[in-house]
């Protein structure tokens, strides 16, 4: 078996930060959308889902990276899936043990972490090529990025849809919740809204830089 040589990445702060901003799995790469939309109707669910995904990302990344020299190319995807499914099953039972209510409100989406493209994608594109250290840091970054994105959605949806954050009322008791936000359309709208906001900021910044360049060109 030949191992294709990949450039081994130095572990830097960027290895971690990349997953949070530049390559944010949700807002930039649009991966793993189903859990993002499905479980973010409350902040608690969002956190739980994020942590569960984070755990599976890190654990499977570690294992894949450790075993990367031993896994034949032909069966690598199958191997990754089995590894991921294992950790997901572990998380699944752990959450059941922690709280049945939480488990019920997350529904099948904990088990569906298996097919979350973020995890398989990381295993295939990064962990299988990098040393354990880099793989873990990268997975951590991605997991935190994913969790943060879930939080972005979860807080907005819970705040508007129920007037609470983590179950604690934020507004005056008479606040009229916008029920649509915790219903399916609300998930799409809030994620779409975040993307619109980011795009708007991006375009504005580009315009500003262009203008700035134009101004300096004039000045010189």
């Amino acid at each position, binding site marked *: 078996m030949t191992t294709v040589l990949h450039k081994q990445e130095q572990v830097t702060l960027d290895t971690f930060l990349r997953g949070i901003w530049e390559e944010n799995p949700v807002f930039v790469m649009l991966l793993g959308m189903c859990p993002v939309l499905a479980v973010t109707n409350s902040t608690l669910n969002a956190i739980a889902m994020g942590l569960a995904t984070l755990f599976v990302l890190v654990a499977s990344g570690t294992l894949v990276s450790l075993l990367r020299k031993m896994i034949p190319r032909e069966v690598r995807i199958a191997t990754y899936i089995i590894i991921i499914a294992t950790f997901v099953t572990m998380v699944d039972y752990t959450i059941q043990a922690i709280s049945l209510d939480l488990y019920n409100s997350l529904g099948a989406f904990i088990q569906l972490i298996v097919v979350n493209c973020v995890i398989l994608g990381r295993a295939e594109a990064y962990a299988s090529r990098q040393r354990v250290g880099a793989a873990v840091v990268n997975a951590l970054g991605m997991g935190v990025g994913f969790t943060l994105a879930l939080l972005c959605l979860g807080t907005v949806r819970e705040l508007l849809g129920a007037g609470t954050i983590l179950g604690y009322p934020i507004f005056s008791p008479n606040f*009229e919740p916008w*029920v649509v936000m915790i219903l399916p*359309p609300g998930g799409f709208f809030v994620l779409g809204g975040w993307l619109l906001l980011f795009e708007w900021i991006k375009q504005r910044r580009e315009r500003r830089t262009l203008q700035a360049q134009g101004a300096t060109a004039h000045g010189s």
Partner: protein
Amino acid sequence: MALTSKPIEIRTSPHIRKAISVAQIMRNVVYALLPICAWSVYKFGLSALLLLLTTTVACALSESLFCWLSGRNNTVRDFSVIITGLLLGLTLPPGFPLWMAAVAGFMAIGLGKALFGGLGYNVMNPALVGRAFVQAAFPVAITTWTPAFVPGRFSEAIPSTLTTPFMTPPDATVWIQALAIDGFTGATPLALQKFEHISASTIDLLTGVLAGSAGESSALLVFLCGLYLALRGMMDWRIPAAVFTGTILTSLPFYLVSPEIYPSPQFMILSGGLMLGAMFMASDMVGSPLTPRGIWLYGFSIGFLTVMIRLFGGLTEGVMYAILIGNVLTPLIDSVTQPRVYGARRQEERP
């Protein structure tokens, strides 16, 4: 000769145009809606007036805002946004809190129109997008109906109308009980028919003395206003015709089998928002198909879906959702009903 003294214009053929433009059509639709608005103000008083004003102003302001944000010319003057505002107001319950109505107007334009590029590019009826949004956001407020012809309605608004923004409206039942109107249950004719199997009389439906949203009441008036537009060629009469056909053909078999449970086709057509929906909302050309066969299919689907939702769905009224579904079906309908071009060879003759 004087002829050369002035520059002559060069245009391409055709050099004449039918003397009717988009702004003109839109203005006439507004005219056609005014009698309906007037009737609803007469019926529900100050609250209805404030509601219509709020939705219209909210829509117009949102349109200006989004035009400004995207650096485009302000398009309020083409009047289409006024139609959106008025229709939105007409579909809401008369006592709907004004702040929610403003949210509806903002969503109608933002989510339903500006997002896609404005007039002509929206995929769904903006007014109904606005209404569907608040229906999902504030399900309680939007199903709270108040009685018509309340004494003193011109001097005093329904309490829920003036709710503080972002707050829960006061319970309407207290106010209604205080009025002590005989037999008012807060149920629309459709709800009565669905849950109690009591059909309102045709005359009541035609003249509209019953509870319901500001615009869903007098079927006759709405019909006449729509007729005006159709006769002036500013609305495609085939769409309402197809909606009515679809409604009748779908509801008739049920009615014939068990008239004690299922309502008659004429009740179906005259009750709820069907008349307003068919005449003014399904007929919005932007969201309806282009092809002749497509137009019939579209109208028929709306009639069919309306009856299905009314008879077998959870909601009492299905017109809004039927039209929205019709709107999203439009691209598919269009693509399967392209007309046969003159002289086109038949399939088997193709090489």
